[in-house]
């Protein structure tokens, strides 16, 4: 079930392949464990614990924690990029307005020698 949902999300481009990979891996593991109960027992032997099912639970939780942490890192990166973009956009917007003002005044035949240092806010609607 989970596997088909993941694949569907990727197919509809709602989920990027790079982010889908860990989920696909997890889904595969879940599938194997549920189809072959023997695998759970084998896991218990491998980790040298008597009761295997709780082990699966613990491993699952560790996996979820790792994914959450990596998502926090991704969110941080995205937030930083978002901020940089907003800052660039706002400064560039200002520059465009400056240029517009200059162009307009040149077209009107007036010289660009603005009357005051700060008289640059005339280009706004």
């Amino acid at each position, binding site marked *: 079930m989970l596997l088909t949902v993941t694949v569907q999300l990727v197919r509809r481009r709602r989920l990027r392949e790079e982010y889908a990979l860990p989920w696909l891996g997890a889904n595969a593991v879940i599938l194997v464990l549920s189809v072959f109960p023997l695998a759970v027992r084998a896991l218990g032997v491998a980790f040298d614990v008597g009761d295997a099912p709780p082990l699966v639970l613990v491993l699952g939780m560790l996996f979820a924690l790792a994914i959450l942490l990596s998502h926090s890192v991704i969110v941080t990166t995205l937030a930083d990029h978002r901020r940089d973009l907003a800052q660039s956009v*706002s*400064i560039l917007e200002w520059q465009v307005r400056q240029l517009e003002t200059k162009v307009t005044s040149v077209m009107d035949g007036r010289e660009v020698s603005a009357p005051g240092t700060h008289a640059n806010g005339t280009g706004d609607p």
Partner: protein
Amino acid sequence: MPRMSTEPPASGPAGRRHALLLIIPAFNEHLCIGDVVRRARRALPEADILVVDDGSLDATAREARRAGAFVVSHPFNLGIGGAVQTGLKFARRAGYEYALRIDADGQHDPHALQRLLATVRSGQADVAVGSRFLGGDVDMKIPPLRRLGIGLFAREVSWLTGTRATDTTSGMVVMNRRAAEVLATYMPQDYPEVESRIILHGAGLATREVPVRMGERLAGVSSIGSWRSIYYALKVSIAVLLTSWKQIPRAAASALEVADVQPAVDRDCDHQSGAADGHGPARSQTPVA
């Protein structure tokens, strides 16, 4: 950082061009931004004034423009750190020599900037911060809880930087190009004043406090509510500690190394002698009421 344009944006008269940029971050301050800009223009006629409108929903941008400031508007709210950083990026792109900053609520007397500027210009420090508590006479009403927080931050910053800090939440700052460069890249975002002290220290730059007087805000409400201030204090304290572990590359050279002034930045501090030895619990300048 990609430099998209080498063309300076400002159009001041040649000669005193691109020397001073006064940055005023503003969020929904349309009631007083006009007066703040006009007062600043009178106090610092040689400076270009840049109001960074941080996604305001009111007429902040229009009022600031009408008062004669350059106005840069964020498409959405980034917080005070992001706003100041935009101003610093603007200054960097246009090649301003000094970046100045005051708050948009009218608490700061822009005339005091001259003294801060003199401190930085003379090479006594890379950054000058206006401190409410150095002068002794604190005539503004500060709620006791916030006063406690300010004292706490002062202690923390003093301890982490080894210099005496009294007013770490001050929004009145003058910095030279080196410091502006560092903060344009590493500006902390949410509550930047305290953390940026640590970052500047980490970059090897010298900060010096200058006593200033601050009044009440002209209008509007502070962005820090009373309930949230506890959360704020906790958050900033932890953030400051984390910040001190951040890797900040050292700036090229601090003002002290350049100007060959004796490096005892905080020794000859104006008033209130003693206990300014930086290490150990530096005496808090804020009597906890």
